[in-house]
């Protein structure tokens, strides 16, 4: 089985954040606050993950009155495996020790 290439440190950070609540839908600002990534960095990573079917998205079901629905994200099954693999292999190097071994 071909090993996946190492993700960038920013991607690893995002994957770790998504792994914290793997079945929860999270919007962009929430992920930005958790990871410390700015929107200019966050969106390209989200787009790439979605292109590779590692991330799924949906629109908020009950938006706040007067505001548009937010775009929500979470890992797919494949994305979950990918994230766990990446964190396990490269998480320590990226300083993500807290995420190691805690997302079975």
């Amino acid at each position, binding site marked *: 089985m071909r090993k996946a290439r190492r993700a960038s440190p920013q991607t690893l950070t995002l994957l770790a954040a998504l792994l914290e609540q793997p079945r929860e839908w999270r*919007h*962009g*600002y929430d992920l*930005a606050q958790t990871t410390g990534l*700015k*929107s*200019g*960095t*966050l*969106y*390209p990573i*989200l*787009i790439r993950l*979605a*292109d*590779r*079917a*590692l*991330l*799924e*998205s*949906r629109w908020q*079901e009950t938006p*706040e*009155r*007067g*505001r*548009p*629905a*937010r*775009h929500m994200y979470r890992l*797919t*099954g*494949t*994305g979950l495996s990918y994230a766990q693999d990446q964190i396990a292999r490269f998480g320590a190097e990226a300083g993500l020790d807290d995420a190691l071994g805690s997302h079975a």
Partner: protein
Amino acid sequence: MSTNKSLARRFANRLAAHAACVLPPHRAEWARAMRAETEHQTSDSAAVRWAAGSVVASYIERIFLMRSFALSAGLVLAGLAAIEGSHVLTQMLFQQQAIDLLTTSLPASLLAGDSGTFTPLGILLTVMISVPVAIVSYALGRALFRLSPDRARTAIKATIIADAIFLASVILIGLIRTVPGEGPLLAAIQSTAVLWAIRVSFVALPLVVLLYAHRPEPSATSAVSSS
């Protein structure tokens, strides 16, 4: 809720709208996502920051799309130019008047004079061959990118490496050729078979890489947005 928006908030919304315009059409959902998230920022300054980041992301996406398509065509053109350039280079370095047919590009060899240099008609014929090849390669590159962006990037990187190896080998051969006291090994390097192998591999390798990249990827769970 007050409908009066501050200047900063209106500026943020304009930035987000600009990001939406810059994004390619197939990213329409992401454009909408950026604008929606900007609206949800609690403070005006946060909204401006988020929208500014969205603009950066949109340009990254647009440039990536343009560069991938242009790069594939550019690589083909550069490769063809390198083939013809290497022909001139070997002519100059070896200072030979008559080059074996197998070591030259077919158009130039057919139309070159005794001096072994290019004729205008030879150059024209080379361009007439290169342009359709470039167009076809561009279309292939674009189709490949839509099929699999990751493999498109891999193919492009492999082509760049192949180009670099080829050019380095030509330069190296030329440098070796000019070193005094050449032995049998250097004579073998100068052989037409070696030069021909380098040229064939240069053309064939990118095509093989592209064909390889068209192989279907292992099946993966499709991402279906749940409603």
